[in-house]
């Protein structure tokens, strides 16, 4: 195509009148006004979208128990006593009990997740949920619109036809452009308001099996009973009412729950609200409260400087800090590289970093002093801590912590530890990649 100004030029040569529709007259004043409008619009948009940097100053605690009331209240997650918690490892540990509970559901099944791709497990879950809906059980499912866009439309149709209510969280549409970046990364299920699951698993073949190879990932979830289930239901209900306006209220969703064990538990659910994200606060306070041992397993580990300092401070006061991250097997090498940018500093300060080599280690686990564990959906990066909706459950119980710790120890056998010497010998290219990835990490 000819560029219009060329036409205008050639028309100019012989004093011919210009084709009027090709050229537009604009005064200097007009140009200035235009530039002003653009600048102002940019400024406003930037100021509404900008993440207000929050530098949280976390004091050191003397003991975890002493810090607990503060932590629970600061993160909006009051501690509820009298729960039971069962740790579920990998797909083989997670899916069978989930399917069992779904099969036994009498009144309502609520399910929220980010990833719903394709594969046998999706088919099976869809068929099961559809069957339950046909039997008259209320089935509600929140799927992130982005995380589920690779899913099989026929399956969704089958479920909807059977009466499953599906809500796609934050669909990609022009009038919701401001919400596009806010995804639900929560993974929760609540059955009859009495049993709850909080987990890291997505609905895809990768999450089946037992973490045995690159096609079968490593992940962890928990099955909960007791008063804490009300809180998990509240977390599900939040995004449900946002998208569907349906208030789920009544005994079949929020029954009065008797004690089911002696685990104390609290649910931290985050949504970006302009302030300091609760999960960020929780992670930082948890690290600051460790006195003996701090174990972190996370697939996307990009600590900001504050987290690096907190981890360093922990080592200094004598805490054994162990962090497990993915090795070569990762679904996001940019994230992995972004994390690397901080490794040297962390290792130098005495944090032990292990790279898991067998498969993708997708679990999001934190264990503090062998008593307090976190299991959930939140990664250790800005996207999880500031942008996404996440859900994580804290369990205060030494036997739950011991179970998770045993699994961690077992995973260590498939890890290589990052040591400074070999680390610093990584290629210049690798280092550049790390720097670049870290620079853009807020949005990864």
């Amino acid at each position, binding site marked *: 195509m000819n560029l219009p100004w060329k036409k205008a030029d050639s028309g100019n040569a012989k004093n011919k009148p210009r084709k009027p529709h090709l050229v*537009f007259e604009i005064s200097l004043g007009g140009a200035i006004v235009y530039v002003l409008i653009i600048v102002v*619009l940019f400024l406003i948009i930037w100021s509404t979208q900008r993440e207000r940097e929050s530098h949280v100053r976390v004091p050191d605690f003397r003991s975890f128990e002493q810090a607990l009331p503060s932590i629970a209240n*600061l993160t909006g997650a009051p501690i*509820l006593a009298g729960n039971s918690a069962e740790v579920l490892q990998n797909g083989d540990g997670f899916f069978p009990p989930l399917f069992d509970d779904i099969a036994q559901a009498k009144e309502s099944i609520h399910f929220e997740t980010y990833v719903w791709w394709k594969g046998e497990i999706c088919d099976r879950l869809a068929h099961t949920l559809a069957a339950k809906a046909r039997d008259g059980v209320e089935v509600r499912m929140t799927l992130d619109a982005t995380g589920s866009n690779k899913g099989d439309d026929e399956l969704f149709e089958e479920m909807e036809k059977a009466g499953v209510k599906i809500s796609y969280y934050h669909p990609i549409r022009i009038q919701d452009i401001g919400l596009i970046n806010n995804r639900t990364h929560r993974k929760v299920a609540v059955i009859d308001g009495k049993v709850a699951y909080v987990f890291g698993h997505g609905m895809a073949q990768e999450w089946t099996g037992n973490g045995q190879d690159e096609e079968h990932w490593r992940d962890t979830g928990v099955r909960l009973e007791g008063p804490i289930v009300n809180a998990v239901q509240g977390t599900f209900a939040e995004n449900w*009412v946002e998208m569907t306006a349906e208030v789920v209220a009544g005994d079949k969703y929020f029954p009065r729950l008797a004690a089911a064990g002696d685990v104390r538990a609290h649910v931290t659910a985050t949504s970006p609200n302009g302030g300091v994200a609760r999960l960020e606060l929780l992670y930082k306070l948890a690290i600051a409260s460790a006195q003996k041992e701090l174990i972190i397993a996370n697939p996307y580990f990009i600590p900001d400087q504050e987290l690096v300092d907190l981890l360093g401070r922990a080592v200094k006061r004598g805490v054994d800090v162990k962090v497990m991250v993915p090795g070569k097997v990762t679904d996001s090498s940019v994230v992995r590289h972004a994390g690397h940018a901080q490794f040297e500093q962390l290792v130098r300060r005495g944090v032990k970093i292990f790279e898991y080599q067998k498969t993708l280690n997708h679990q999001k686990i934190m264990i503090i002093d062998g008593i307090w564990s976190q299991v959930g959906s939140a990664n250790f990066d800005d996207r999880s801590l500031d942008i996404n909706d996440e859900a994580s459950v804290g369990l205060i119980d030494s036997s739950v912590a011991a179970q998770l710790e045993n699994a961690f120890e077992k995973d260590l056998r498939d890890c290589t530890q990052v040591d400074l010497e070999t680390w610093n010998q990584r290629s210049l290219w690798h280092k550049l990649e790390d720097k670049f990835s870290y620079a853009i990490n807020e949005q990864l």
Partner: protein
Amino acid sequence: MEIPIWVFALMILSILVLGTMLWTNLRERRFHVSVPELDCFEQALPSIAGMTKAIILEGNKAEILQNGDGFFPALLESIANAKETINFETYVWWSGGICDEVANAFAKRAREGVEVRVMVDAMGGMKMKKYLRDLMTEAGVKLVRYHPLRLIDFGQLNKRTHRKVAVFDGREAFICGHGISRLWTGNGQDKDHWRDTGVKLHGPVVNAVQSVFAEHWIEETGEVLVGEKYFPALDQVGELRMHVLAGAPLGGVSDLELMFKMAIATAQKELLIQNPYFIADGETVSLLKRAVKRGVEVKIMVPGKITDSPIVSHAGHHHFSDMLHSGVRIFCFERTLIHQKILVIDGVWSHVGSTNLDSRSFDINEEAGVGIIDEGIAGELKAAFEDDLKDCEEMKAESWDRGYHLWHRAFDRVCYMLSDQL
């Protein structure tokens, strides 16, 4: 200057695109929440607590503070008695009189070594003069303004803290509707002395109020309040069950809006509302009508001629005719501005706080309120309501319609349409 038309088109397009982006950013998403009919209040309680993420805490005590005469002496006394920490957050703070008195009390305690944190909304505190700020900061009070009016925070401009809370030593809390201004002094006797209500709380619920304060404090200062002087382990001190609701615009449905609507849906016998800014949306109106239909006596008290915001009153009028005809009783308080935000359901459950019944309070501002499950407290608030009724004029459907002229109707409609931002 001559430019090719395609450049011009691009210029227009770029403005349109940016304009759309801005609109989608600032646009309030509308939520038409559908609330099911709930059984009696006790049965609905776990649902209300779960949906609004406000756990019911047992073993508390509450004391109702009516008007300035009930509130300020109690506040000043608590300030004087605090040992380690004072945390205070409010929206309105002017200068002179009571404003100076409160500031002096904070300054005195700060000089005596008490940690004093004061957070004032940057907009509501605009009339606070510099000498007051200096007085406090020089004494060591940590004075912080919420969402200062700065260019880089333009996006936050509309989001104000309307919360009114105070926590002393992490062991005693106030939740109220009062601002710090001469208008809130006195006993609600005339138009320069407003009517308002607050509560003083003891027991485990104080932890929850502290966490409401801490939320904004961390946001503005980065200081994390940890330790027993802020969050002590609190023993049960009474019989009252309570839950604290803190509304914050999260992009979803506001917890306070959910709570109010669910509460209306649970009422079986009686529903009392006192609110200075009552702009019911369609859903609320239909909930109120449903309540009347199932036999609930619904009484709503709103400001009469004395109001600080006539536009809000007019926006509220929009649904009056509809509500009056369906049996909702509406009373206009004529003695002074009623500023309290009170809800009493079935003589059991009451809510006291900062939340107006309009979309600014539900969807935009940061609010705080406490739900109290206790017949004694509900009885006290009901008695006060009935006392206020003596200074009210009841609106009648027929006379309202007769006097409701076309221009008034049109004006109300315009106000109602603007009401999102009022």
